[in-house]
């Protein structure tokens, strides 16, 4: 199972800003997960394609070609606006 979290403006595309997938979409990279979500929901796909969106796997920001394994927590992060 993959736990997917959406923060900031991305949160509106999933109830409570989160969803669960039974397994990582092939070929099992962060980019594949992003593309899979975009295929299901075009609005989300467009929001995730914004160049400043980052992906974190298990709370660590990673490259889009990083692998995703069963049990991972994947988070999509728009640009932060803290402080």
């Amino acid at each position, binding site marked *: 199972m993959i736990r997917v979290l959406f923060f900031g403006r991305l949160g509106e595309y999933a109830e409570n800003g989160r969803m669960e997938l039974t397994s990582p979409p092939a070929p099992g990279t962060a980019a594949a997960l992003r593309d899979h979500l975009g295929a299901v929901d075009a609005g989300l796909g467009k929001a995730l394609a914004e160049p400043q969106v980052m992906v*974190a796997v298990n*709370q660590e920001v990673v490259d889009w070609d990083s692998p995703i394994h069963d049990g991972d927590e994947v*988070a999509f992060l728009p640009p*932060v*606006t803290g*402080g």
Partner: protein
Amino acid sequence: MIRIQPEDFDLAEEYQQLRQGGAGVGAIVTFTGLVRDFNNIAERQGASVETLFLEHYPGMTERLLEDIIREARDRWQLSGVTVIHRIGELKPGDQIVFVGTAAAHRAEAFAAAEFLMDYLKTRAAFWKRVRRGGRNEWLDMKDSDRMAASRWQREGKQPGRDGGGQQ
């Protein structure tokens, strides 16, 4: 010390804490961020704003802040560092963020406090939204914050991945 909390904080308490660093503490810098007028924050016209809300990524936020503080301690000799960031609903005039640094000399304390604030604005996992006319609007990072943070980066390094060394 890192705290992420909905509760307000007390500058005087945090300051006294930083003062406890021993006879070598000669300089204490505090930065306090306050929520400015909402409509100013949202930076465009429209229905008046009802609330400001801060979301964070629990777990990851703390990890990023620990990284940031470790980096500050690598760069400067500090006897104390405190970072507090509030989450949840805030109103104009509320305290939103606190950074305090204690050092032997003022240059270190100033540089570290500014560094921490620049990174908090650009690297820590916080998102601000305003609610107006019954709708949520997420705020964008300001270019000025991006530029401020980039001062601390060294050539040929990834943003936020540069270790020790003075500016």
